[in-house]
């Protein structure tokens, strides 16, 4: 179950952009002066762009936590995380694993993968992650029989190979 500290951090990720949306909507409704009209569109756009993935992650977390049937199949992890030509067979849900890899840093310097003792370790790239993203990545790893490890050297997701 989610603990209180994570819940507070997760709520922060969702409620902050929501508050900004409401705040600017109120300002626009109450007085359309030049500065509000200039600043509101960009702020509303940014808030909605932050809110959308946070809501998606929250729904994903609920889906996993509720134990709904996920769409597990045979997959090649190397299609998500390039590892030369080697095939990395895992049993998993492509949609969930794709999100986990994205959280691990696909947008910045990318992620890499190493294999040892039947376990693939996906090593995080440099990326800014919030508590909700870390929570979701941890849930996804656990749903696949693996784990997410945080250490002083970085973040790694370990997944058993099929």
């Amino acid at each position: 179950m989610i603990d209180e500290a994570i819940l507070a951090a997760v709520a922060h990720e969702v409620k902050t952009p929501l508050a900004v949306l409401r705040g600017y909507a109120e300002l626009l409704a109450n007085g359309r002066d030049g500065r509000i009209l200039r600043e509101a569109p960009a702020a509303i756009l940014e808030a909605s762009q932050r809110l959308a993935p946070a809501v998606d992650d929250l729904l994903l977390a609920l889906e996993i936590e509720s134990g709904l049937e996920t769409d597990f199949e045979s997959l090649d992890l190397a299609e998500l995380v390039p590892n030369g030509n080697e095939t990395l067979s895992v049993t998993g849900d492509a949609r969930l694993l794709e999100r986990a890899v994205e959280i691990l840093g696909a947008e910045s310097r990318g992620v890499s993968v190493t294999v040892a003792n039947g376990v693939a370790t996906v090593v995080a790239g440099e990326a800014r992650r919030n508590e909700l993203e870390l929570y979701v990545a941890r849930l996804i790893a656990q749903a696949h029989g693996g784990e997410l490890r945080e250490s002083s050297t970085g973040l790694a997701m370990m997944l058993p190979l099929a």
Partner: protein
Amino acid sequence: MSAEVGVLIVEDDAMVRGWIRLSLRSSEFRVIGEAEDAARAVDLCERRVPGLLLVDYRLPDMLGTELVRELRREGLAAPAVLMTANTERGMNEVAREAGAQGTVLKTGSAEELLLALHLVSDGGDSFDGRHPKRPSGQSALSPRERQVLELVASGATNREIASALGLGAETVKTLLARTFAKLGARKRAEAVSAAHARGLL
């Protein structure tokens, strides 16, 4: 019309700072500075004299309560209001203990924000009643327990704590046991970590 009150906004989220700036624009509150973290806030407080502090609880470098406590130690008397995005159990108690005069939820309501600022700048307090009260088992640390815990956090041994506070070794042990019980901790590191998480240090 009341006199202008200079407000220092301490908030890491630029979007939220932008909204607060605009919300205060037609009021008697004038933004005299913005800090994205606690270090910058301390720096700004040394160079400008805020009449009121509006501080986010979750700052990148420390909790807002820790910042308020630090500024109080340095002698800053301006009223402080702590902001949170969501309700948090015990928030009003830890804010009060840190030396803040109020709490406000970041709901996007300029009216709520301005009401809280008006109340504290007039010398009152404004603690948002939507924050659930702290469970009775989690009573606040006494000043002495806090001193002991601060020394524990700095790496001091029991003997060093006893020496620094002029106490006997057994008294230090008792104080530590009481502090650990209040924080639900078994080890020194757990106690320090729990106290930080609750904004008690």
